[in-house]
């Protein structure tokens, strides 16, 4: 099934594109500043199309089948989103155009800001961050700026539960703050005693994912927020799991001061094989002036039925811009379309069915796979991929074998606090029939683990590729290919 590299398809003199002749007089090229060799492939258009179509066929996406990857919210990506994002007025506007010429864009961004404020219970939103981790960095910088504005430079610690995504501690370190890890209790909540002991005048804040990465709603959330606020800290919310909360509860009401949304999880924008995402950040009133900008504001109210005039404004004490221009606008268009079509009642239905599907799978699988924190979950749950009767079988084996049954595996080995974790998030867009087929496959694999463990160890069998040698990749480290003729040219 190996597909050649695009360079392998290259033949000298072959063209893939037709371009117009120059219609202006030629200017002399700058002496000594032009290159002699441009090592790009020479292929025809049909070569390119077939090559990349064949590559796409080696991939598995949501549109191929069930993709229960925990904490990633692999819900269906509506096709209208893709169409509207490509409308000429959106796709072909320049980010530095005069605001009066892009009022449609600004009106759309303004609505997304307003709706996220309402859904999250916040007073301000910036759409600038490009992804979840980028939103985290933004949020921690806001926390830092807030404390310093209070004249308090001693608050350098960020408390993070051991169940958190790796991005949380990494973002904290990038913002120049210090990570303090907190343990979880026996019910999967943050351990209150440890939190109490850690809360002091050096704490800038707490980073919390809720529902947490076990898919559980923090049972003492109000107490957690109160403890952090009492010691002068702020609470940061990682919105990776917001899909469970739409219309159910607003993070801002629960005591979160800063929060990032993942438009590519909760609001149906596609993951693109790893991005682009979009990670807007919402804040409560006393943090609005620190948001990264520019953000969209109404700069002139419209009279009667007239539309207002929108403009781009930098918040008064902004931490600054966190990227060029205004954020991933193409994702804002998609999320706008999704929210507009769902409306108020549709958002609640999303959470309801995401939570229903997760609990249904948990109820169906708990007899076969041990669920270490077994209570009503939110949008996902964590099971263990190991059995005493099947020593040697690991979560990874279960995952690879699932591929043979036509499913994408769950998230493996996360959260770190569960051994051999299988983190399962079905999302609301999957039917009961799909979930039942998945349960059947999982049950069959559990039987195979005992009767024929080798079939798991050597899985997958029915995929175009078998297990890949990661050790060899890291050892030999081949990260790029050079065209053969270039090597020849160098030798000359």
């Amino acid at each position, binding site marked *: 099934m190996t597909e050649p590299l695009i360079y392998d398809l290259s033949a000298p003199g072959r063209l893939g594109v037709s371009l117009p002749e120059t219609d202006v007089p030629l200017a002399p090229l700058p002496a000594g500043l032009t290159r002699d060799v441009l090592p790009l492939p020479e292929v025809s258009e049909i070569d390119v199309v077939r090559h990349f179509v064949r590559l796409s066929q080696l991939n598995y996406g949501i549109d191929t089948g069930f993709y229960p990857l925990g904490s990633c919210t692999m819900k269906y990506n509506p096709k209208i989103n893709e169409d509207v994002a490509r409308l000429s007025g959106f796709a072909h506007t320049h980010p530095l155009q005069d605001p009066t010429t892009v009022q449609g864009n600004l009106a759309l961004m303004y609505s997304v800001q307003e709706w996220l404020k309402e859904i999250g219970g916040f007073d301000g939103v910036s759409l600038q961050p490009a992804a979840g981790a980028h939103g985290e960095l933004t949020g921690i910088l806001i926390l830092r700026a807030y404390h310093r504005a209070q004249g308090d430079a001693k608050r350098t610690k960020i408390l993070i539960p051991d169940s958190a995504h790796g991005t949380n501690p990494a973002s904290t370190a990038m913002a120049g703050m210090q990570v303090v890890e907190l343990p979880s209790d026996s019910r999967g909540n943050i351990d209150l005693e440890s939190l109490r002991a850690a809360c002091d005048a050096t704490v800038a804040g707490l980073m919390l994912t809720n529902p947490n990465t076990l898919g559980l709603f923090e049972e003492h959330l109000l107490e957690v927020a109160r403890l952090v606020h009492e010691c002068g800290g702020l609470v940061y919310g990682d919105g990776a799991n917001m899909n469970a909360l739409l219309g159910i509860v607003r993070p801002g009401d629960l005591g979160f001061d800063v929060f990032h949304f993942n438009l590519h999880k909760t609001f149906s924008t596609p993951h693109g*094989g790893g991005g682009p995402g979009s990670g807007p950040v919402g804040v409560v009133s006393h943090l609005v002036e620190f948001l990264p900008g520019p953000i969209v504001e109404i700069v002139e109210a419209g009279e009667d039925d007239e539309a207002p005039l929108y403009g781009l404004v930098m918040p008064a004490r902004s931490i600054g811009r966190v990227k060029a221009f205004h954020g991933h606008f193409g994702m804002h268009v998609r999320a706008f379309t999704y929210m507009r*079509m769902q409306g108020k009642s549709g958002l609640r239905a999303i959470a309801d069915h995401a939570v229903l599907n997760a609990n249904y799978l948990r109820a169906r699988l708990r007899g076969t796979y041990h669920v270490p924190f077994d209570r009503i979950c939110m949008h996902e749950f964590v099971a263990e991929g190991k059995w005493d009767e099947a020593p040697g079988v690991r979560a990874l084996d279960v995952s690879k074998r699932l591929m043979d049954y036509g499913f994408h595996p769950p998230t493996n080995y996360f959260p770190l606090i569960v051994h051999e974790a299988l983190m399962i998030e079905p999302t609301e867009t999957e039917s009961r029939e799909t979930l039942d087929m998945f349960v059947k496959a999982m049950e069959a694999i559990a039987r195979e683990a005992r009767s024929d463990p080798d079939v798991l160890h050597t899985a997958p069998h029915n995929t175009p590729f078998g297990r890949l040698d990661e050790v060899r990749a890291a050892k030999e480290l081949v990260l790029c290919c050079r065209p053969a003729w270039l090597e020849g040219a160098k030798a000359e």
Partner: protein
Amino acid sequence: MAYIPHTDDDRRDMLAAIGVGSLDDLYQAVPAKYRFPDLDLPEAISELEAASELQALSEANLDVRHNACFLGAGAYHHFTPSVVDHILRRNEFYTAYTPYQPELSQGTLQAIFEYQSLICNLTGMEVSNASHYDGATALAEAVILALNQHRGKRHKIVLSPAVHPHYRQTVRTYMQGMDLKIVGDDDCCRGPEELLPFIDADTAMVAVQYPDFFGHIVDFHRLGEVAHAAGALLCIVVNPLALGLLRPPSDFDADVVVGEGQPLGIPLSYGGPYLGLFTTKQELVRKMAGRLVGETVDSRGQRGYVLTLTPREQHIRREKATSNICTNVALMALASAVYLSVMGRQGLRQVAELCYHKAHYAAAEIGRVPGFRLWNEAEFFNEFVMACPQPVAEINEHLLEHEIIGGYDLGAEYPQLAGHMLIAVTEMNSRDEIDDFVAALEEAAHD
């Protein structure tokens, strides 16, 4: 309900299997006081209604398809062959997650490997990562790489004023919690020679842009030598499309090359998503931020690809990771890989030359209009600075009446350059369009 397949029977049976009576019963852990807020949001609309609402919003904008555009400043209107979007719309590509399960992700993985290869070959660098958010954040990550390379013992970054203002602002945002001096960019007109005195034994990195923000093509040989003599890294921010014509930044012995990949087949899309290029010399690979795809074999002996050197990354190293980046812009990297493949060796050169010649024609023609003067004599690629006889905002207002989106008002970010317009010309601007632009400028000068 759109996109939710459940019937009433499904809901009833599933709730029974869980052992609860209603959907509301699933939320006992949520504080009752705040449960089920009455959200002030619009009611749902159908797909048909949404399509027409979005169409109307998009038509409230002036776009570069219906108006001539001479605005660049870090985002450019280029031709994209149809092939690119057809590939991006392949469901298996755009609805996939990060390729954590390589057996089901060879399409994404090989495409990224090819992207890494194409970008390495274009820049002349040895290693490219799988992408960063955009040019600005890639530069900020390069600064972090430089600080790590010197194990936090150097505390200064020398930044050229001719690096995109948004990139410089982003670097400062990222670095506000670090003990770091960022110097060199407080005077708009400092060239590479004038940056030399800032470089010393405390300098971790020197960062410049190529072509620079004003469009100039600058030789960074000497700057690289001085930086390296002081033990500092040289980082060059590039426009990759210009590299179809210009010497690659590796010729200046750059240690890190970052840049904005948007010109490579990615629509303007009002500023994003774009593509952050991030490349280094081989020796810096373990300090690099972001994902890397490496070649290997599978259990059946087939050549295949996996994410590699992952111990640099946040999901393994947590607070000790080289960066917090997780989601990148893989689909945009795919767009640029398809673009570079279909343009190829001859096509990219041809586009770069079209941009070059058209920009030089425009500069010469505008230079003949009384009151307009080319700012200086430096070599430029497809962007140049014109001193204008009137405030740039007024000229641009006049141009809009002629359905022309004028250039960038440099006074906004460089007070010394008030009254100067940065003009970008690409292969999209026909000679007629350029002539109309010149005529409209002439008219504006008379108003």
